[in-house]
């Protein structure tokens, strides 16, 4: 279909500070015990997109990711892993792989996307509307556990300003305005010309940019070449294209590309109400995912917890596991002590051992964890090879590989870095804990 796919896998994200480590770069963070990148790759594979370019920040990360991909997808996908230096941003990363891009359209997908929205839908919308750029927008997921025990209010307060402001035309196909959450101050500035051209604009704050873009390659490369300052696709390139849709500087070159339709006398009675008035030099479109689709990005610790919970819970079809009658996933090799309960929406991976009288609710426990007796784990993610000794209480926390929790540790909303050891009886609340 003349599409090329670039997956922006990232490197060591600062947002996920204690979680990522040398051994565990962001693309390999486990979501329901699978690297997060695998969700994107499998989504693409399901759409019959098998030739991918995965861009990774940093050489060593590239080695790790490349090693994992070649192991996991050896026969299934043809993946080219490209390493770019850190801090070049997504736009820089695209520049770096530009010479690989030859197809008519480029699909740029963020590697931390966990979704079941078919990329084909975005691509098809892009083609159908003959757009310069098409973005996947989805309803902003509600963050924090829905029936939360802990202080979610604070999290929500932090989340809210992140809401994107999106302006759509009345058909909800064309993007007229975008402002990323961080840039939005007290008031929104909207270009008069665009508003005039369209007559009306629908401003929405409940939509999230899912970082899946379909670009026309020529236009994208034009922008990347001309604007060397552009650092990020989301914050620079995309808003730029939306901003300049009426008077783009790339129009001279952009026009001949859709020339076939434009040059011949335009019969497109399509959606003409807006068509007549707006002489767009290029079209910026949006594909708004259905509410029933799951779509989330792993770009914060909170999101990491949420996604882990959702993938084992409501968006269970993404995990690829089959749920037991109790609505949880317990690997047959996992050992449970007497009077230990594993609640619904839980996952217990192979070789993990639980002692007596434990209780696990809405949590994911990785491989080969040793968990003592009388341990309570709620709303948490425990990665591989973690040792938790008797009497611990863990809530809303993330415990990375090889960490060790000695007896009677109490954790609430904490992140424990890889290999970190918590001493007997320590109590922490809302703290990132990791080796310095």
């Amino acid at each position, binding site marked *: *279909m003349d599409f090329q796919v670039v997956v922006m896998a990232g490197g060591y994200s600062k947002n996920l500070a204690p979680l990522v480590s040398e051994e565990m770069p962001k693309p390999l963070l486990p979501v329901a015990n699978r690297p997060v990148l695998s969700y994107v790759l499998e989504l693409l594979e399901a759409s019959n997109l098998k030739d991918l370019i995965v861009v990774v920040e940093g050489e060593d990360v590239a080695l790790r990711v490349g090693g994992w991909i070649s192991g996991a997808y050896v026969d299934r996908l043809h993946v080219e892993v490209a390493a770019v230096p850190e801090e070049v941003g997504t736009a820089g990363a695209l520049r770096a792989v530009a010479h690989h891009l030859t197809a008519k359209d480029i699909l740029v997908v963020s590697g931390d996307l966990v979704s079941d929205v*078919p990329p084909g839908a975005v691509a098809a919308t892009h083609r159908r509307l003959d757009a310069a750029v098409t973005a996947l927008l989805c309803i902003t997921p509600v963050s924090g556990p829905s029936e939360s025990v802990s202080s979610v209010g604070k999290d929500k307060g932090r989340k809210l300003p992140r809401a994107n402001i999106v302006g759509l035309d009345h058909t909800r196909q064309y993007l007229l305005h975008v402002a990323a959450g961080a840039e939005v101050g007290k008031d929104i500035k909207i270009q008069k010309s665009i508003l005039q051209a369209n007559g009306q604009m629908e401003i929405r704050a409940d939509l999230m940019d899912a970082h899946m873009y379909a670009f026309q390659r020529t236009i994208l490369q034009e922008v990347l070449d001309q604007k060397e300052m552009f650092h990020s696709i989301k914050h620079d390139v995309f808003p730029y294209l939306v901003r300049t849709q009426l008077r783009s500087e790339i129009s001279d070159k952009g026009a001949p590309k859709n020339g076939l339709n434009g040059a011949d006398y335009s019969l*497109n009675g399509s959606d003409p*109400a807006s068509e007549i008035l707006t002489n767009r030099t290029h079209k910026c479109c949006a594909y708004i995912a259905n509410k029933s689709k799951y779509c989330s990005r792993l770009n914060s610790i909170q999101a990491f917890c949420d996604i882990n919970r959702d993938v084992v819970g409501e968006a269970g079809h993404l995990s690829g596991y089959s749920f037991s009658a109790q609505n949880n996933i317990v690997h047959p090799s996992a050992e449970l002590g007497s009077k230990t309960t594993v609640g619904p929406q839980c996952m217990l991976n192979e070789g993990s051992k639980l002692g007596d009288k434990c209780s696990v609710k809405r949590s994911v426990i990785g491989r080969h964890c040793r968990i003592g007796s009388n341990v309570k784990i709620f709303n948490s993610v425990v990665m591989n090879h973690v040792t938790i000794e008797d009497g611990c209480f863990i809530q809303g926390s993330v415990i990375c590989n090889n960490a060790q929790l000695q007896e009677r540790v109490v954790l609430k909303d904490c992140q424990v870095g890889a290999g970190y050891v918590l001493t007997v009886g320590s109590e922490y609340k809302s703290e990132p804990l990791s080796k310095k």
Partner: protein
Amino acid sequence: MDLRRLPRTVIDPKVRQVGFFTSGDPPSARFNSNPADTTAATAATSATAAAISSSSPNSDINLAGNSLSPVMIPPLRRMSPRRCDDMQMPIGSYNPSESVLGTSPSRRGINGPDFSEVATSAWLGISGSMKAAASFPGSSGEMMMAGKNGGNALVKNMDSTALAVKTLPGVTEKDGGTLTDMKNDGAGTVRHQKQTTTRAERRAIQEAQRASKAAAMMDEKDGGTLTDIKNEGAGTVRHQKQTTTKAERRAIQEAQRASKAVAMMDGKGGKSIASTGGGAPSISNQEKVLKQSQKKDGPQDTGAASEKKVSRNPDKDRKKDIPQPRMQFDDKNRVEKAKRRAVVNQFEARNRVELFRHLPQYEHGPQLPYLESKFFHLDHIHPSVYKVGLQYLSGTITGGNARCQEMLLAFREAIIDYSTPPEKVLVRDLTSKIGSYVSFLIECRPLSVSMGNAIRFLKNRVAKLHRNLSESEAKSRLISDVDRFINEKIIVADQIIVQHAVTKIRDGDVLLIYGYSTVVEMILLHAHEQGKQFRVVVVDSRPKLEGKILLRKLVMKGLSCTYTHINAISYVMHEVKCVVLGASAILSNGTVFSRVGTACIAMVAHAFRVPVLICCEAYKFHERVQLDSICSNELGNPDVISNVPGKEDVNHLANWADHKNLQLLNLFYDATPSDYVSMIVTEHGMVPPTSVPVIVREYGKDQFIF
């Protein structure tokens, strides 16, 4: 589907000539052997062309058929064929299928007694483009209906001819006795002629056999002596088996096919009648009885056919020869089959309107998301074709010209990117490729006539490519052909139409337009640029409200406009000087197939004695004939008529699908009878609707058959 393919016979140039110029010498001999009969007279009209060539027994026939039309006078025809063409549209000579076969004479001879179904059908135009040659016997059953029943409907349209049509059944019934000899004779002729070897002759034989088959059917219902006739037919066939020339074999096939078709017809007479559009809803009891008797007849016939089976598989041949009839979507088996083949998963709509069950109608909601999510899975479809398909489905591209043009451009891209796979021939592979693209597009939205013609053109060009051409050369030829088609048939044609039509706009005129037709828009703008002072009444209709778009464009250019909805048509027509309309297709009986509502406008205009101009490019003409808008139409999304735009709270019809006894109908097109059309403006000039077949014939050649 079927519309795209011409019957093979029609293409045959020799045959074509016979139809019009009556050069057929061989038939004349044959004629003499045909006994004259009064009943044959009516049939003669259908075979007028033949009548000319045959000097013989038509004198008395003509007496009987005099009331029909002046066509019957042979010299006139010969002298000024042109004029006849213009005048005598309903006559068989326009019907390519008739003209095709040098055999129409023989058909007349044999078929004549059978109520002259052929003749009526020619008038009714049932056979128009429907490959009459191939499907005649099959459709004879319906024709019969049409003759009797459809006759009523037609009376108004064809003043003089209708009389004949009506009288026919009576005549034949009376003549039950004579029928048999007639047929024997016919069969005799057949056998006799076998010795002759010209191609036309052989064709004639086929025709005769077929006819005799049909005759046999008819007979039974007349209580006649059909069995011997059948035997006769069978006899001839068997006899012919020994000979092995191609023509002979074809003859046999024809016969078999005929009997098959007859059998089939009986089986599902009701449906096929609906499809041919006759007077389906009003099948009288009499007809039902007839059908029953035919049913009895059917199996026998098939039995005979199977007896005669030559080593070939007739089914297979049939598929090849007879173009597939239009898919009837109330036929569950076929729909199932088609579904399995389909690329696009269609979701059938609920609560479909009874009368339109034979048309495809799907849920419009899930189609687009489904197709979109499959975007990367349909690798065999070229991206540009896919894009166009999506645009059809989502309604981004509408309008006959736009759809056709976009499709051609998509095909053009596909041809540019095409490379012949190893061990395949470009001509064949590309044809099948295009075929698959077309079927994909059909799944997105049914083809329009204009698209059908364009596809036929392209396929023809592909098929005509010379084998020795290199791939790049072949491709560049095709590309230039596509460009030429777009340019000549659409762009330049529109310009010429504009020039023609502008002459009809005078200062002070009030023009009424309906919906949104690009060519009409161009006309108005051009007239405005010329400084003509006129006013435009834009009439619009729900649910598309396309008129608004046109209105906006016109007002922006400074034309003075009135905007109203179609409900006010009778009021607004008072002040109108001229009605200018576009068309989706024009059929060879002058029927204008256009956006629903056009017929209403044209009729009101007719009642007010306001001239109606139809502006339509000639590539949208089609040799098919259609009498109503039921048999072939397109159904839109029924939900859009239940919604009131801008008023979300007015949703009285929400969840209408849950009511079993409520059906919504959103028709796209309707058929305007030619009576209400004053003039058709094409790039070939301004012609009356009766001249459509002339254009189809004269320019169709150069359009599609190169």
